[in-house]
């Protein structure tokens, strides 16, 4: 799994830090910071959810298996 957060695209909504704490955080300017580039288990699921909920499209969470989870609202 590879995780990227693009500060140029980020609008600082904080959804990633709220959804997947430990994987994502905000720097003091409010922009995305990746804390763990290769989370596993529950953190990995939360990272995928954060990607789906991110309003700006700043997150890239690519899974090794190519699996993508659709989790909005469920």
């Amino acid at each position, binding site marked *: 799994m590879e995780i990227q957060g693009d500060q140029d695209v980020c609008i*600082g909504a*904080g959804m990633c830090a709220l959804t997947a704490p430990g994987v994502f955080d905000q720097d*003091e300017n409010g922009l995305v910071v990746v804390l763990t580039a290769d989370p596993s288990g529950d953190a990995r699921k939360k990272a995928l959810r954060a990607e789906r909920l991110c309003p700006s*499209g700043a997150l890239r969470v690519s899974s090794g298996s190519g699996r993508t989870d659709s989790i909005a*609202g469920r």
Partner: protein
Amino acid sequence: MTTAPPAFPQARVCPHLPPPAYAELRQGPALRRVTTYAGQLAWLVTRYDQARTLLKDPRLSSDRRRPGFPVISVQVELLTERKRQALIGMDPPEHDIQRRMFLPDFTLKKVRERRADIERIVHESLDDMLAQGPPADLYRDFALPVPFRVICRLLGAPWEDRDFFQDAIRRLVRTFSTEEGRQAGAELLAYFEHLVTEYKKTPDGAGLIGRLAGTGRISDDDLALAAMSLLIAGHETTAAMISLGAVTLMENPDQLAAIRADPEAIVPAVEELLRYQSIADSANIRVATADIEIDGVVIKAGEGVLVPASLANRDAEVFENPDVFDAGRDAGGHIAFGYGRHQCLGQNLARLELQIALTALWQRIPTLRMTVPAEELAPRPPGAIQGIDALPVTW
């Protein structure tokens, strides 16, 4: 086509439920034509996926001054004539530059540092209400003052001037008269222009206004307009959600009991309340700057697009039994705060305020109940932030 497109937005009948006709619109196509308050034809987006796709599309503009911008209320009409736009009416790159100036005050970390302060404000408001009642007006005595004090402190807007703010804001956001709204808006803006000038004289001034005044990063005029619009956006919505949230919870006593029994349960419950109420349809309005092909239709450049969360958040493909209030469901994918680059700047502040307020309310007043049936509460007109202006309660 034999009939004129339906009017949108429509009026709520019961203030804590969407307009009855919206259920039918959800059964129709993902995009359809509607008629705005001003009589324009515009596109209505009725589904979750299309709503999210469009709210992220850079070909949709938020600039109220653009020809064809959908005028859904007197308030939007007033914004179309304003030379300067606040954040909500800006496009990139100006939008992103200004949003980033405000972000440091709204990060999850900074918001969570405010917890003790918010708890104190919540409990002081409840102390006052308990000292004077029963009965009480839960909107006037609790739902309104709590977020108002919180946002005043965050911005550095003097609480002593709250009577002026509240009176002028009410005249601006509730009026059906462009003249009255224009006058109230001018008074508020003049007040904040003066405040910015004052803050420039005092280094280390309070709050967001004090932090940015005189730094050269933002003009005085833009800072004044931003402060005014953050003051309004920062409390009007949260006050509505605290009061409507309380109504929904009182209407569902079993779920309220379950939330009270489990301190963690308020977190998903607040997300479900946000989904279920979806009070801010008026924020998700755009105009196309180029032709956009989506779902078999073409939105032409210059056409208005309405993307109401009250429809997307009840898309049955995404939220099972969407008309059922289920405080235990995972509603976290809702777009009650919008989506795309304009998603609510203060969403994590709003979440925390709602969690604290709706927990403390029943901790302090376990026997709280409405003195009128929910369906007798007066809804606000379509096009406004949905909510109530009075909530009679006793205990």
